[in-house]
């Protein structure tokens, strides 16, 4: 009897520990989510007095049928993410592999590659982009002479500029991913490489046969992190649009509907990623 009480007390302790999170979760997450779902089926009239009129799925229909901006913006954000995410993963993996060797200045390089994370994606980055840093970085980085652009003609040089500034922004977003990959690479036992070297494997083969399978869980982690990071980034265009609808046009019901559709999309996407990754991820040992 007393033993059972002890077990139960221990279980209760578990709930005590997660209680702060649970309270916060209900107050600052579940309640607002449900409330915004509820608003999304209504038309909000008058911000001060707040009268709600039930309109059914009208707000959702509005997004696809009447709103000329939402669907194109939505697709452009998806397009950006589909292009950026693989590049971020590939770049950060390459940089992490380069950083993972024993060499002089390793500490410096590791510290340097994380620095752009400090800039974030908010106002500081905006100021830098206004100043045109995004375009200048890679032009200076590659050492492309300014005169080269004179020969390209205006449209083509503009294209090159856009491409370079886009690549720069992608590079600056790899900080956290590089660190995670580095941590993953540290976890691979060196004896694996040594024994395969004895068997005559080249570096290239070792990458495909050892590094990549063993790092695949980190790739999944980074993939999810990158996707969530880019879709929930408050500076992405669809987020700015929803904010604009809610706080400038004050169409609260419509903004809630847009927010919910966007959320449902992210949720579905992450579920698909996890489901699809089950076969591709190699887990060593038991899980």
């Amino acid at each position: 009897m007393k033993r059972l009480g002890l077990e139960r007390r221990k279980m209760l302790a578990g709930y005590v520990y997660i209680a702060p999170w649970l309270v916060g979760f209900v107050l600052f997450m579940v309640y607002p989510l449900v409330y915004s779902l509820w608003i999304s089926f209504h038309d909000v009239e008058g911000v001060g007095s707040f009268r709600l009129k039930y309109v059914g799925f009208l707000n959702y229909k509005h997004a696809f049928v009447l709103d000329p901006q939402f669907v194109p913006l939505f697709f452009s954000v998806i397009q950006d993410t589909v292009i950026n995410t693989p590049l971020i993963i590939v770049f950060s993996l390459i940089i992490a592999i380069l950083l993972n060797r024993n060499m002089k200045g390793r500490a410096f390089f590791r510290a340097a590659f994380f620095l752009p994370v400090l800039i974030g994606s908010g106002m500081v980055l905006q100021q830098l982009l206004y100043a045109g840093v995004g375009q200048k970085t890679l032009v200076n980085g590659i050492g492309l002479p300014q005169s080269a652009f004179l020969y390209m003609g205006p449209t083509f040089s503009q294209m090159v500029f856009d491409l370079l500034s886009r690549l720069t922004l992608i590079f600056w977003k790899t900080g956290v991913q590089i660190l995670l990959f580095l941590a993953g690479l540290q976890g691979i036992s060196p004896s694996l490489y040594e024994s395969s070297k004895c068997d005559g494997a080249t570096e290239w083969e070792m990458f495909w046969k050892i590094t990549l399978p063993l790092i695949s869980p980190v790739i999944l982690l980074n993939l999810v992190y990158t996707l969530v990071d880019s879709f929930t980034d408050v500076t992405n265009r669809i987020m700015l649009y929803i904010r604009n609808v809610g706080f400038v046009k004050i169409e609260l019901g419509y903004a809630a509907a847009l927010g919910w559709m966007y959320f449902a999309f992210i949720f579905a996407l992450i579920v698909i990623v996890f489901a699809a990754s089950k076969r591709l991820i190699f887990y060593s040992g038991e899980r």
Partner: protein
Amino acid sequence: MKAAPQSHRLLRFMRLGLSRLTSRSRWFGFLYRIFVYFLLIDLSFVFLYPFIYMVTTSLKTPPDLLDFTIKWIPTSMAWQNYAYGIVGLKYGEHFWNSAQTSAFSVIGQVLACSFVAYGFARIKFPGRETLFMLAMFTLLVPPQTVIIPLFIQYKAMGWMDTFAPIVVPSFFAGGLRGALFIFIFRQLFRNLPWELEDAARVDGCGSFRVYWKIIMPLTTPAVVVTVLLSLVWHWNDYFEPNIYLTSQDKYTLPMMLPRLYESLNETSATHGMETFGLPTVMAATFLVIAPLLLVYLFLQKYFIQGVERTGLVE
């Protein structure tokens, strides 16, 4: 008998070939290493560029700015740009606002997320996995989806134009990516040996004392990672403060940057020299992230080790 010299010759030939091959691969290795260094230096330039640009531009005088032969080193150090930046941002006042919101959020997240993670990692109770999944699921919710109800809620609670909407959720293991920090602490806690706890319990330690006196001192890597990421994200956050803080004396530092930019544009537009404000803007921008740079400088070594030691990627 006859085959002996033949095989001997073959052996010598093979040895020769092998040595030639290894010497070639040594050359190749050397070149490869130089190539890697070159690549890393070039790449790190891309990552350092915004900072180099900020600092060099912020020290330029208007003539230096227009002179395109001057790329990096200005002819004279225009420190006055920093003075303009400090005045334009009202640095003293708004630094405090930023420091308060960020510091309290960081403290809240370190305490609350480690506490909650201890429950998720070390105590078995029904529904634990489901609840943990739910916690992770909060990371997927875009801030825009919940901002309107939260706005109404905070207004009703009288929290508008205070730091409470930014700081208080952190103490409930929420706030900016609170769930991520729960995850980080949980990963570390799970890898700690159980014997630690058993020994303390035999000595009559309660679970809270185990958490606070035994487990927490071992979590320095996770604390460093959480402190730095949480600080960076809260310090740079613009979205939430911009919605919840309405009076200008409550503004955080990043919120002052667009104000400065606009006021400079107005004054320079009347004088017809739009770009001359750029050094001041860059000085101000640098001033905004300088505290983060300083903190990163001190924590950087522990931070990068920390990511490896928390077992974040296992």
